[in-house]
């Protein structure tokens, strides 16, 4: 508890990252990354790897900067004018924040799914192939192939294969979220960013999404924000615990949930605090 109090008081400290995480091959590594909204600092010198082919969960109390960190990975924060950053991130060896980076091309290498399903007001088919459309892809067979592949990947194909030309908005909330996942994996991204993808869904839909994430493991590297400790323990390989803009502890999920090095982490994941 003292350490968290110290963080609240603004003292510096070292994040604890277990060796088993560092040993993995990272797809994204965050390096001494800080972020400011105007004057207000939201992220403090975060350094952490996101392991390739694994599911990494970000947990922490509300407002600790999980979404901010996630949105920094594909530079969605560029859209907010007041944002200023320090430090860097690296995607498969290439810098994300270097001045010469083409943001558009960078975003095409990642997929992102938001808290609230946000299908576009167009047909299911067009929703899925949107990333290809903006690249100017016209070939019907390629589009159809990608569409089927992505929908199968998102475990939605069987449910919608007969109604691909219907509006994406005609689906249920859980289906919409899987549609968004299908859209996110349509461009075959190097990393998949999920920001509380289940928080707007009922338990059954949540279960389906969790199954889906489980199936995507290995094929995709996934960084997921979640509020639900059980969910984190069920689906993730690594878990990072954040507090007030800082990374506190990061380890294999089983370690975090059973024998974390810091008692603060234990308090949080067991629900005694937060």
């Amino acid at each position, binding site marked *: 508890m003292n350490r968290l109090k110290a963080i609240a008081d603004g003292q510096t400290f070292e994040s604890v990252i277990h060796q088993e995480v560092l040993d993995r091959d990272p797809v994204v590594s965050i390096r001494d990354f800080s972020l400011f909204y105007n004057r207000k600092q939201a992220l403090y010198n975060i350094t952490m790897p996101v392991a390739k082919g694994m599911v990494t969960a970000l947990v922490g109390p509300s407002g600790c900067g999980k979404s901010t960190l996630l949105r920094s990975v594909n530079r969605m924060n560029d*859209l907010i004018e007041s944002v200023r950053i320090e430090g860097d991130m690296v995607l498969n060896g290439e810098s994300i924040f270097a001045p010469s980076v083409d943001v558009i091309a960078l975003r095409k290498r990642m997929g992102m799914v938001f808290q609230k399903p946000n299908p576009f007001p167009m047909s299911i088919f067009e929703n899925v192939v949107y990333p290809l459309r903006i690249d100017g892809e016209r070939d019907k067979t390629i589009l159809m192939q990608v569409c089927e592949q992505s929908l199968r990947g998102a475990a939605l194909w069987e449910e919608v294969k007969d109604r691909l030309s219907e509006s994406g908005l005609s689906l249920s909330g859980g289906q919409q979220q899987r549609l968004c996942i299908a859209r996110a994996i349509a461009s075959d991204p190097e990393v998949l960013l999920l920001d509380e993808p289940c928080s707007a869904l009922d338990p059954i839909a949540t279960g389906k999404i969790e199954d889906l994430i489980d199936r995507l493991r290995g094929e995709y590297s996934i960084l997921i924000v979640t509020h639900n400790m059980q969910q984190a323990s069920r689906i993730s390989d690594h878990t990072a615990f954040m507090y007030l803009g800082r990374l506190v502890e990061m380890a294999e999920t089983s370690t975090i949930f059973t024998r974390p090095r810091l008692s603060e982490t234990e308090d949080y994941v067991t629900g005694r605090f937060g």
Partner: protein
Amino acid sequence: MVWLSGGMFAIACLMIVSLLAYVLWQGLWTLWPRTYSIYGRKDGTLVGGELYAKASLEGQDTLYLRTGNYDVSNQHFAYVSSSELVEPSGWLAPDLWLVERKEWGNLYGFPKQLSWSQADPEDFVRVVQQGMRQTAKIDRELGQAKNELKRIDEQIADARLGIRRVELAEKIDLQKAAETGSLEGLSPSAQKAVSNLGLRNRQADETMVEINARIAGLEAQRSERTLVFELPILDPLGTIAADWTDLRAGRLRDPTALAELLGTAKDSSELSFNAEPMGDGGLSEPGVEDQRLVCKVSIAGEPARRLMIRRLEDGRSSVEAFREHSILLADIVRFFPTNRLGIFQRLGVYASRWWEFLSGDPREAGMEGGFFPAIWGTVVMTIVMSLAVMPFGVLAALYMREYAKSGWLLSVIRISINNLAGVPSIVYGVFGLSFFCYIVGGYIDGGPIKAGFEPWPSAVWFSALGGLAIVGLIAFAISIFSGHAQSRRSPLRTVLSWSGGFLWLFTLGLIVWLLVKSPHFHGFYEAQLPNPTFGKGCLLWAALTLSLLTLPVVIVATEEALSAVPNSLREGSYACGAGKWQTIHRIVLPYARPGIITGFILAMARGAGEVAPMMLVGAIPLATELPLDGEFPFLHGSRSFMHLGFQIYSLGFQSQNSEAAKPMVFTATLLLLSIVTVLNQTAIWLRASLRKRFQSSQF
């Protein structure tokens, strides 16, 4: 408080509903074929009319009658106090015809004789209809011939213009040469123009004779066929001594006196006399039985004459004749025995009148006939207006909502645009007239001088042009450079982008100023001067003025629609790697489309109903040409046009006989109101239905 506000609400509702009901009633009722009654006045005269309204004027019941027969009685409508009448209900003469004419308005009378046929009066309807078909053919041929004449005139005018162009280009005077046709000492182009005029003149001389002869022949044919009517206007002939009971029974013991009065029959034995029952009566004073009789007198070999016989105090009877009036068959638009029509025939006439109203040309300075040119003018003007306002408004709103950084400047601009919507429309009219018509139009017609600018000397102008090229180049370089420096946020970049923008503005201003000050441009229509082509009110300027007026509506609606697009959609698109324009074009605009279209339709409704600026920038009461027709180049931006709203104003308040035009004004009002309502309803419906489509059916 609840009573007060509720009462005010009720009053407001009542006002709106009664306005609508009044316009609807008047507008729908105007074209309905009514019956025509003939009333007896106490002084012995008759007055006939379609009953348009009953009112109480100065404590007396007054009938508002459409009397028709303007060419004889000099009035279309009359107020008749019921105290003047022997009885307030009139005589519905069964064989009375209503004839709608191309000139002089309606004629109401009894058909007596056809100049081209000896048919029985029972057969008149059929014979006249047949005759009208033939005259319609003559009219068509006449129209063709007149068109040919017009085309010849146009060709000569074109040839004259050609000469004027050569004169302007070569600074010479060709007046003499054009008159004499001599080509000596002229340049090739001048020779060509002069000989072209000569050729056209010769052609015209040849064909004109033939066409004029043809027209004369057709006109003669047209005036050949006439109809004689007996109007419900009495001319006294004299008195006769006859037994009233006999007269009532249709007998006349001594026809000689009557024959003498009529002055026709030598042998009174050929006179046959019969009294006609008068339907509901209504011409006699109550209590006094059968004071008047309408009789038909036929004389062998001649059509029957209609007489009014009135019983006098002293036992004698006065005889009065219905006044005869002859009209041309070719002048008839439509006729029917108005008092004898059944409900379905009446509906038929009603429908055909509406059809004429919607599709026909105006007659009698717009008081009768159709409103087609006005409807067409309004529609074409509105369409051109929306084509102009659409890209403007949408792009401006797009810039303000999606590109511009929010700040005080943007707020000020937004507030100004909102205020612009409240500027009285006549102000736009004045601006349109003085800027579009006189300055821009004058510039197009005759160059800077005509638009009121002093051109620069050639040398000054060319050095300014050089300056422009340099400034433009610098601006271009700066914007390319600052585009490259995009990813960096530095003060240098801010300075660069500001100065680049400023330079572009400066370049634009310089281009405009160079155009205005050019000594080398003399307008596209210099040869037509002093007749203005674009330097007056016309379709183009009217549409542009209106598009300025409706711009705020479009901008506000588009901005609203854009801000209603959920940010999560934009983010989703960016996260897929879409650029700004891709996101706008693929996600934002489709989502905002219903709102944008709604804005448009509202703008169109606003524009279609606007009258005040139209009076200044191009609407005229009577236009012979349509602004959009089958003649190359189809859309004639420089033509003046007729406009529904303006038509209401000019007919109702500016025509010599606005009283007579009032019914038409109501019908036109109804039409305008329904156009605007239909547009508004479409907007509302579209908004509702498309919004539903975009609503997610979550969970």
